[in-house]
């Protein structure tokens, strides 16, 4: 491709087409550009266009295309062809900085990004003059150019903040420091000087302050890894200027915007970060500057307003103070009573106030408000920062701080009492202050776990929280109501149970509040209270204690779901689930209405499932209804099927992907509840469950396997007699699952159920094929997880079909195969099997191999008899071997389904642990002793000699213990 006008013209045409809204025109143009981008000069043509094209749109389009081209192609990947020819690379690097700096802002941004991408690969080795070129521009005096350079430098250097120390990285930083630190310092000084020269020129100031922000950011990056010699030597200069800038104010730079931070705020924020970095990392060197910064930042806080635009600055500044005040050697900066008082008064209290913006969020954006307030995603808020400062100060000054705040709390409460409707915000601040002062440690599960002993929480609860909640009007002062409910929630472990019990009906009452925050908090508080554990790990509240409120509780909860904005409120649904779980049989009388309401809800949300948590809890609630009811009256299962199947059918037919795994789990639960043979309604579904398309989705697999297991458990004879033609389909599913490293265990669940429940003759013809598939997988990829499952399976097979059958099927595949499996897999790996039932299956299976398999006694396999016994005793007595070979650690990441498709397991649809050898064998050690005894009577003399010659002493001792316990001897 030549650098010709004709080519420029062609390129312009195609670029134009890539902007066309019509895909029929756009796509081919994009394809064309992609097809020619490998040619030499292509990037240079783009650069020419973005510089010289007459058409502004083409300029911008060329710059974006160029940036994307660089992003895709610049990196040279080992073993792959170099996608940009060397001459082009050189030409690009020679021109791009100049081009970037002389372009208008829109294009400058694209080119700056491109430079960072190139820099990431080439800088510094393959782009040695970049630094000099940049530094030279500092002298240009043109601050548009300078800011372009600074921005590029920032994008090149900011990785120093998050990369690990390495020789390579430090060599680069050293190089940058040598070339850049001094010019940057000079630029910093000059810029500050210019700021005072242009103190009255708003537009000049804006440009200069943009430079100062970038310079401060560069300072942070260059000082992040370690304190460079240059900056240590020039600390005076930098810190003095930073300090001055922190205290600087200029009317011209103040913005009218209330939301968006202005240049002044951004700069000061960055300076706070810089000071915090030095204070934390380079304390020794920074010590003498620190007190000045503490004062400056504190003054800054006192004089900064409540507007949202200051939030980042204020929270950064408060966090700085919080981190300094808990260091022992700076304690003295804070310990003066006057200082403490003014920090409390002027920094903490004002930043705890409920602001107009909070009020707005409370009313109009409740979901976000709740998320921030309840789930602690408030890391950057002022209130959070103020709380952290309280906690930091309490480390050394708990007594004085509590004293100061108690005074404030009292006066704020008095203000409120004078005129509640006007002064309700004072009470809000008082409650918040008490909360932040009292809480030393907190968890979601238990609320506050360590409280400040100087604060009387129960007294405050009785005097100031309960009265609000008792007021007849649940819609009055919603913020205070929410505060009160939250207080119960977080101090639930500090407030005595009798008080909590008093608040239960009050909370139930507040489920009716119109405010989303209030009724959500009420639901959440109830849910948390119902989860609390008392002594003996039983729930703190008994069903009997809550029984008086059952009806109103359930009514209000479901009514709350009809309030505007809460139709899919996960907190309410979780409270429903939790109430069911706590109340158990007490809900049975209400089940008909409850299940109707739940089904309607299910039908409604299945149109467009959007709240995963809500949906999950809803299905849990359905499961609980089924379990609780059918435990008392198994026959009631039919009623549930009647109520649910219609909706389920609809969900399956409409292929509502999110719900299908849930539906299968609920169906499994229902099916397992049936005591007799499988109902025909289920059998009709059976063929559909084997459809490959269902198994394509990873999220379905566990639930489907679970359901098929339920089918096999309840309906194996029906399947064998009425659906034998489906058995190959069933095995097909097994084959598919077994091939995947992530799902092979699911395949084994299915296979084990088949072996355990299907009449042997119905699977006879497939048995050899099954083993062949397993061997194939063993050969292709043998993982620990697979081996564990495989061991459980062959032992189950041995129990079900007999030891001889197992030996025969192995040796039928290939002579001596049985011996190889014993030697290479069972004996060395059995120690890895985990889980009580699984170990028991293996123990019983191996016992059978030892005692009921004639070839073990009189063929070449006999030499494996004692090692097998030894490994069985190991399985009984040694700790489980849970080592995983290194190369397998990555399997999880590779094969684990992503979040989207993750299987959502329902806790209340849980299956009882099933022990297929439960009736057969109670104690596997005794069983081994008895079986050995039986064997020894059949061939007297042989067993004791085999045991005593090659079993190790320790194992022998254990074995003798088993024999004694079983009261048998070996003959």
């Amino acid at each position, binding site marked *: 491709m030549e650098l010709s006008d004709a080519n420029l013209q062609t390129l312009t045409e195609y670029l134009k087409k890539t902007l066309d809204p019509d895909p029929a025109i756009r796509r081919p143009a994009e394809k064309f550009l992609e097809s020619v981008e490998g040619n030499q000069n292509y990037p240079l043509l783009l650069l020419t266009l973005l510089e010289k094209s007459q058409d502004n749109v083409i300029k911008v389009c060329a710059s974006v295309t160029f940036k994307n081209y660089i992003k895709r192609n610049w990196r040279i990947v080992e073993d792959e062809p170099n996608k940009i020819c060397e001459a082009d690379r050189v030409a690009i690097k020679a021109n791009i900085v100049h081009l970037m700096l002389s372009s208008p802002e829109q294009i400058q941004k694209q080119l700056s990004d491109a430079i960072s991408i190139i820099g990431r690969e080439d800088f510094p080795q393959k782009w040695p003059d970049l630094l000099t070129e940049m530094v030279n521009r500092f002298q240009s005096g043109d601050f548009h150019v300078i800011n372009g350079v600074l921005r590029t430098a920032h994008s090149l250097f900011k*990785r120093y*903040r*998050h*990369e*690990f*120390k*390495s*020789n390579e990285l*430090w*060599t680069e*930083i*050293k190089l940058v*420091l040598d070339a850049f630190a001094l010019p940057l310092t000079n630029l910093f000084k000059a810029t500050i000087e210019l700021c005072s020269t242009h103190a009255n020129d708003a537009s000049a100031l804006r440009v200069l302050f943009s430079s100062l922000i970038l310079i401060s950011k560069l300072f942070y990056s260059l000082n*992040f890894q*370690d*304190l*460079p*010699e240059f900056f*240590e030597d020039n600390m005076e200069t930098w810190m003095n200027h930073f300090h001055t800038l922190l205290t600087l104010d200029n009317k011209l730079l103040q913005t009218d915007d209330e939301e968006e931070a202005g240049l002044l705020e951004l700069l000061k924020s960055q300076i706070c970060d810089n000071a915090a*970095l030095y204070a*934390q*990392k*380079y*304390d*020794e060197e920074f010590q003498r500057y620190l007190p000045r910064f503490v004062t400056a930042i504190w003054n800054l806080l006192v004089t900064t307003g409540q507007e949202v635009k200051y939030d980042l600055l204020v929270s950064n500044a408060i966090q700085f103070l919080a981190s300094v005040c808990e*260091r*022992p050697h700076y304690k003295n900066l804070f310990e003066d009573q006057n200082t403490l008082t003014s920090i409390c008064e002027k920094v903490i209290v004002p930043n705890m106030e409920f602001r107009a913006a909070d009020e707005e969020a409370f009313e109009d954006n409740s979901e976000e408000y709740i998320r921030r307030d309840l789930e*602690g995603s408030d890391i950057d808020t002022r209130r959070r920062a103020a709380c952290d400062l309280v906690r930091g100060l309490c480390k050394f000054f708990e007594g004085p701080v509590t004293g100061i705040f108690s005074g404030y709390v009292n006066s704020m409460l008095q203000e409120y009492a004078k005129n509640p409707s006007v002064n309700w915000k004072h009470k809000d601040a008082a409650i918040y202050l008490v909360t932040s002062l009292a809480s030393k*440690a*907190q*968890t979601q*599960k*238990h609320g506050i*776990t*360590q409280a400040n002993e100087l604060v009387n929480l129960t007294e405050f609860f009785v005097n100031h929280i309960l009265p609000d909640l008792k007021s007849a009007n649940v819609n009055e002062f919603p913020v205070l109501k929410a505060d009160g409910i939250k207080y119960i929630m977080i101090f639930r472990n500090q407030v005595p149970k009798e008080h909590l019990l008093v608040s239960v009906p009050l909370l139930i009452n507040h489920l009716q509040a119109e405010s989303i925050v209030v009724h959500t908090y009420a639901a959440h508080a109830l849910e948390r209270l119902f*989860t609390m554990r008392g002594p003996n*790990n039983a729930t703190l509240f008994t069903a009997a204690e809550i029984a008086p409120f059952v009806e109103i509780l359930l009514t209000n909860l479901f009514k709350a779901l009809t309030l505007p904005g809460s139709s899919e409120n996960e907190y309410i649904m979780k409270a429903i689930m939790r109430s069911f*779980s706590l109340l158990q049989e007490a809900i049975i009388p209400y089940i008909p209405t409850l299940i109707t309401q739940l089904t309607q809800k299910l039908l409604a949300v299945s149109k467009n499932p959007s709240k995963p948590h809500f949906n999950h809890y809803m299905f849990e609630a359905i499961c609980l209804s089924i379990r609780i009811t059918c435990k008392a009256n198994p026959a009631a299962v039919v009623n549930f099927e009647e109520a649910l199947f219609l909706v389920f059918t609809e969900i399956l037919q409409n292929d509502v992907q999110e719900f299908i795994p849930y539906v299968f789990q609920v169906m499994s639960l229902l099916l397992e509840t049936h005591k007799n043979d499988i109902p025909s309604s289920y059998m009709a579904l059976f063929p559909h469950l084997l459809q490959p398309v269902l198994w394509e989705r990873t999220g379905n697999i566990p639930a489907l396997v*679970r359901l098929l*297991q339920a089918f096999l458990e309840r309906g194996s004879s029906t399947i064998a007699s009425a659906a034998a033609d489906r058995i190959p389909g069933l095995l097909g599913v097994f084959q598919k699952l077994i091939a995947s490293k992530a799902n092979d*265990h699911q395949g*084994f*669940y299915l296979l*084990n159920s088949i072996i355990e429940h299907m009449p042997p003759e119905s699977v006879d013809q497939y048995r050899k094929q099954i083993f062949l598939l397993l061997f194939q997988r063993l050969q292709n990829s043998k993982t620990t*997880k697979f081996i*564990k*499952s495989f061991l*459980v399976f062959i032992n189950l097979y041995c129990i079900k079909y007999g030891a001889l059958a197992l030996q025969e099927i192995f040796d039928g595949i290939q002579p001596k195969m049985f011996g190889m499996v014993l030697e290479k897999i069972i004996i060395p790996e059995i120690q890895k099997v*985990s*889980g009580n*039932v*699984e170990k028991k299956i293996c123990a019983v299976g191996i016992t059978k191999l030892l005692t009921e398999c004639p070839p073990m006694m009189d063929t070449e396999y006999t030499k494996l008899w004692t090692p097998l016994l030894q490994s069985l005793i190991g399985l009984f007595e040694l700790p489980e071997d849970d080592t995983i070979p290194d190369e397998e650690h990555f399997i999880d990441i590779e094969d684990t389904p992503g979040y989207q498709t993750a299987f959502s*397991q329902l*806790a*209340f649809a*849980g*299956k*009882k*642990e*099933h022990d297929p050898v439960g009736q057969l064998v109670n104690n596997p050690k005794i069983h081994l002793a008895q079986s050995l005894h039986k064997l020894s009577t059949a061939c007297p003399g042989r067993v004791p000699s085999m045991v005593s010659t090659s079993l190790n002493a320790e194992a022998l001792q254990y074995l003798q213990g088993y024999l004694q316990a079983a009261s048998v001897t070996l003959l």
Partner: protein
Amino acid sequence: RRQQRMTISLELRKAKKDEQVLKRRNINDVSPEPASEKPTKGVSLSLDEIIKGMNSSDPVVCFQATQAARKMLSRERNPPLNSFVEAGLIPRLVEFLKSSLHPYLQFEAAWALTNIASGTPEQTQAVVEAGAILPLIDLLSSPHMTVCEQAVWALGNIAGDGPKLRDIVISSNAIPHLLTLVSSTIPITFLRNITWTLSNLCRNKNPYPCKEAVRQMLPVLSYLLRHHDSEILSDTCWALSYLTDGCNERIGQVVNTGVLPRLVDLMTSSELNVLTPSLRTMGNVVTGTDYQTQLAISAGLLSVLPQLLKHPKTSIQKEAAWTLSNIAAGPHQHIQQLIAFNMLPPLVDLLKNGEFKVQKEAVWTVANFATGATVDQLFVLVHSGVLGPLLPLLSAPDVRTVLIILDVLSYILQTAEKLGEKESLCLLIEELGGIDRIEALQLHENRQISQAALNIIEKHFGEVSDFQEERCPSLLVACLCS
């Protein structure tokens, strides 16, 4: 798993201030004159006069000029080292070293050369290139002690320049001559000079001084370590610290001379210049094999370490914590000793209140401890209250520290899971504000960190935790998925 660190050869920081000096100029005004007194006149000549005088054939004129030169080179401020190099006077000074008939001249020349060699690498190089080393070594056998001493000093400056010149001094067979000078009868200042020169002969890596040289010096160093003078002790300890700053074989050479108990003794010295290098040496020793570390422990290292962890100077705290981290990287028997000697409380205190560079070492210690500990030891670690100060450091501006802490947490959580103790540990971490910090790290720009944080949250702080009591695992789920 074990993290015995190699320091990166590159530094962004200023060179350390408290380390031993490489080269020293003799600026002593009241210079000790050779034994037989010869009056020195207050001659003050210009550089030209000096050049002229030194090139004279009259030994007296030469002496006067050389003395004037030496005085010029010894002046406090701006000694004109380079002028002498450029004037080509070094070869002449070297020549004077050989004039055994004129010990005063030898002395003045050696002194002048000492001061030139104390300059830049180029200036030292110029002295060597003029062939000064061999005559200087010859002077070590001079009957005049002051001449001898000045030669020791000059050789010290040359050896201090770096591994290359050091090895030339060594291969010129200086060591045996130096060692024979050591005796209890020589003046203390002389012995100090010899010790310092020996330390320079032990100094610098890439390459290290050859093993034979070290073998020759070690008995004398071990003798000097018994001295009472703090300067001698300091330089001897520095020498040993250089010798132990290397592979296990090098450490073994030193350890085998049996100096460890004495070094531990010196770690309690009130003199910072003795404490610092003795601690450094012991710190180096425990980077060695488990056996070498055991010898250090047997020498009593652990009984003196706690007070150093609480030392008022941050640099001592840091070295002590570094030492501790390397003992913690050992087998669990060593970890048991750390517990027995009550190292955990001061460690927790450093994590809480130390300066950041000390906290960093303390974090390494915790990491090494955790990964090498038995279950019981891990239990002791967690119960020592280590998580309280460890979790806030997740917000520290240092990516490596953050990653190490995440690894420690993940490791402890895994172990707790196996023991069925996970729930209480998770609660503890949450109480201490850990979850918020870990969650925030999921957005960290360093991929290893964000991934590690994500893994911890997903594996240990998932939503379902409060269902656990109701959960009945299906047949094989519990084992096969784990």
